[in-house]
């Protein structure tokens, strides 16, 4: 993905995650900034479906040639689906971080945690 982008319909966590809210479930991923900082992603270690994740705690790993990084959960809940396509095509995280590069879907335990997240304008301003 060549140019930085932070879609307005998503919410953002300062640890460079995005959240797409769909009622009491949400899709998680990492932002354009995060994938750009990592470089070419070569490996995604997903959480287990059924496991619980806690806001601000690591729930997965993304690995580039240079380094491995924890992915921080932007909200709390139970993993209901992980993006299994990433095991064959982890580079989707670079190429389409808000689409094919999504990481996990989570049944939220406390949807009000969204109030702690940032909108696109606030998040992108925090990067400069």
């Amino acid at each position, binding site marked *: 993905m060549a140019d930085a982008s932070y879609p307005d319909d998503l919410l953002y966590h300062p640890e460079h995650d995005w959240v797409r809210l769909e009622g009491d479930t949400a899709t998680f991923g990492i932002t354009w900034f995060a994938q750009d900082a990592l470089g070419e992603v*070569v490996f995604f*270690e997903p959480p287990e479906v059924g496991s619980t994740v806690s806001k601000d705690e690591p729930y997965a790993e993304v690995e580039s*040639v240079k380094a*491995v990084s924890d992915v921080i959960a932007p909200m709390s809940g139970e993993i209901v689906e992980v993006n299994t396509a990433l*095991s064959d095509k982890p580079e989707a995280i670079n190429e389409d971080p808000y689409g094919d590069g999504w990481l996990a879907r989570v049944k939220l335990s406390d949807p009000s945690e969204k109030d702690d997240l940032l909108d696109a304008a606030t998040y992108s301003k925090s990067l400069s």
Partner: protein
Amino acid sequence: MGGAQYSVLCREDGGVLDDLFTYRTAPDRFLTVTNASNHDKDLAWFQAHAGDFDAEVHDAHDRYAMLAVQGPRAREIVQAMADAPLPNRFTTATRLLCGRSALVCGTGYTGEDGVEILSDPADAAPLWDELTRRGAVPAGLAARDTLRLEVCFHLYGNDLMEERGPIEAGLGWCCKEDTGFIGADAVRAVREAGPGEKLVPFTVTAAGIARQGNPVIGGGEVTSGTLSPCLGVGIGMAYVPAERAQPGTELEIDVRGKVRPAVVGTKPLYRKENDG
């Protein structure tokens, strides 16, 4: 004269202080290239021992900058800038590159052909600009690390350290104990008895990358690891018990709490001729 030699600098007990390339620039002059992080330690070591020999040690650290031009087009690009043919592999010669004097060395740390250029620091930026203008592409440390690991070149601080000797590191080929170098007796003793652990190259046989510091289950530790862009799998080097150092031996590596299978390989892990 004009030769280049890789070697290790040992303590009395055989521990490796640094690994070095040394260039013979005149019959009685040698220029040795330290790892930057070891420079002060190496210089003090040379100075402390020079008094035992008819030798003078000078610190040339501030007199040279070094550019490594590596890859299939490296010689072609540098040759086009040079006033005379470039030195062959493992030799060195002074050349004018676009009018700037430089020591050109047929060496490198990538497994590819190419040269390393030692110049006055003031000439390094103009030479860099000229090289990139002619098609050289800057490469960062992580890219360099994939190349050197594919061919199993050691990195000091990862694969070599004062607590390990050259025999266990697989560098016995550059140690000639009969010359009586500092540490020769210790190196000879390990060579004769066999080291307890050996540094081996490995390939991860499932997804994932083992990295420096990951324990090998049953003993040993990964000292370097990355993804091989050419092989498409995790590769690295690890010290393992000598009885488990044979190529083909299956290893299990604890990668941040998850067990990854790996297999001991042979050096180099990647050979360019194999690539189709």
